[in-house]
């Protein structure tokens, strides 16, 4: 048990678990912000995978880290944009729930 930290599989499974939680949240959450939170989980699951491969398999361990840093930057930008969209949507429709938005469209 104590050597889990030096095995690739641990990280890959953790990545998969986070990814799964992300998908679960994405499907379950009725509201846009909740979905955004789930997306963040998905992204971090992916980042973990990158970092794990980077650590165990890559010849140049900087690349994975830089990719993760980029993911962070993109995630931040994505969060900013999507949250603003959510707020704009909320302002116009007084709701951030997906169902309502579908209804309002028709």
């Amino acid at each position, binding site marked *: 048990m104590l050597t889990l*930290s030096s095995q690739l599989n641990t990280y890959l499974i953790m990545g998969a678990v986070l990814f799964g939680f992300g998908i679960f949240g994405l499907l379950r959450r009725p509201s846009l912000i909740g979905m955004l939170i789930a997306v963040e989980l998905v992204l*971090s699951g992916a980042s973990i995978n990158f970092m794990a491969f980077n650590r165990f*398999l890559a010849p140049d361990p900087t690349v994975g880290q*830089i990719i993760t840093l980029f993911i962070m930057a993109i*995630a931040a930008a994505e969060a900013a944009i999507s949250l603003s969209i959510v707020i704009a949507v*909320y302002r116009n429709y007084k709701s951030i729930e997906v169902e309502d938005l579908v209804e309002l469209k028709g």
Partner: protein
Amino acid sequence: MNPSLFSPEGLAGIIFLILIGVTILGAIIATCTKRLIRSVTGLAVCFVGVAGLYYFLNSPFVAMMELLIYVGAVCVTIAFAIMLAEPDEARLARKISGLSGGLAAICGGAIAFALGYAAVNGTWMAAPAARANDGSLKMIGESLLTRYSMVFELISIVLLVAIIGSMALARGGRREE
């Protein structure tokens, strides 16, 4: 093979287990609570765990940045957004229940299982015999200044566009009023 429990390695192993626990706990809180603000808290907890995992993957800088950016900035921004647009709690409670929740759980579980199975059983190429460098902060800096300098600049433009765009979006409605 197993290190003794009280050696540094052993303690680190325990910490690792705790971190995994924290990550999964955070993920559960983030996805399963009703109130969005609690979800954000869960997300923050989850990110703390993920940062720990990064640390175990020999990249302390990325771990710290995970804390700084995700916990300190993204979570705060999401929390502010929630303050602006949280849906009715009672309505939310009614909505999350029954079938859709179950379906989502099955779906998420299946994907996680499939991925995990693939990861464990997959054949990965062998670890390289020699590493090009130690992947430390200095190395990251160096590659940012050399190989990835274009990306380095581009990311600033992406951020700028994102921020300006989101500001325009968030403020836009206000002007209409």
